[in-house]
């Protein structure tokens, strides 16, 4: 378990409702409505907490007919805290985790449900956003300008600015009206 994973897990566990959910899941696997009834919380509140628990790796989910059933992930709780503390923190992985956390923060701030809310003013943040949009382009494939515009317009209406910025940031290259991902 990396330092960041351990922090996320401990943060996630520091909440009474989530502890109550885990205690219920210790008894048996359950679906949202059952947990809501048992803990006297709304299904929306239970779903919110379960998502956090799943993201932290504390709970797994599986589909059963019409229901999504949640189960406690035993492996993660069988690791002792001392084992987690004994693990060496590698400088490289710490830096990678920091970069990834920053990247995620920027993407969460500027994207909503897959749409770009606004083009970041800061170059560093814009670069992250442009790299995210670039994931929609296949490497090695040539695109016409119209195709490029259509792909970018799925994210933001101002496809001209974004297309130009992708060229100037060397994310896309243009040659005689043909575009290609760098």
């Amino acid at each position: 378990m990396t330092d960041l994973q351990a922090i996320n897990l401990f943060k996630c566990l520091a909440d009474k409702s989530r502890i109550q959910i885990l205690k219920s899941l210790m008894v048996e696997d359950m679906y949202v409505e059952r947990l809501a009834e048992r803990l006297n919380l709304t299904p929306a509140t239970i779903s919110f907490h379960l998502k956090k628990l799943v993201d932290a790796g504390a709970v797994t989910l599986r589909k059963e007919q019409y229901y999504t059933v949640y189960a406690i992930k035993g492996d993660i709780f069988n690791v002792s805290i001392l084992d987690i503390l004994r693990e060496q923190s590698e400088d490289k992985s710490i830096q990678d985790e920091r970069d990834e956390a920053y990247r995620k923060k920027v993407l969460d701030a500027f994207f909503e449900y897959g749409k770009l809310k606004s083009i970041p003013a800061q170059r560093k943040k814009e670069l992250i956003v442009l790299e995210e949009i670039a994931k929609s382009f296949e490497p090695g494939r040539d695109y016409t300008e119209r195709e490029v515009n259509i792909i970018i317009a799925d994210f933001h209406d101002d496809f001209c600015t974004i297309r130009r910025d992708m060229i100037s940031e060397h994310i896309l290259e243009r040659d005689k009206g043909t575009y290609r991902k760098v």
Partner: protein
Amino acid sequence: MNNNDFYGFLEGRKKSVTSDIEALSADGRTDEANILKAKFNVYDIAKSVFDTTAKQSPDSVATAFPALFSRITGPWNTSLETAKTHGDDRKVLIEEAKLAAVAEITARFAKLVR
């Protein structure tokens, strides 16, 4: 309608929600407490909107307030539906909390101007 009755209602609800937030925090349910803070802010929004309409249209505040308030809070319904569609559970809880406050405020205002 006595404006102070409406102000008194808004202040009373703020106190009640503050007490709920404190209780949740004390109970170690920080995320739910933070989500409830969104509800608290709606009472302040209602107060600002009421102040504005009471100044601009003192004779027609009974219709001007609900019109302006619903123009501000109306998009929250869309936001809730979008959040549900995308499975954004945190946003669903926030929008539901805000809309619960809107329903309380609208109902009380209608009662006071009746």
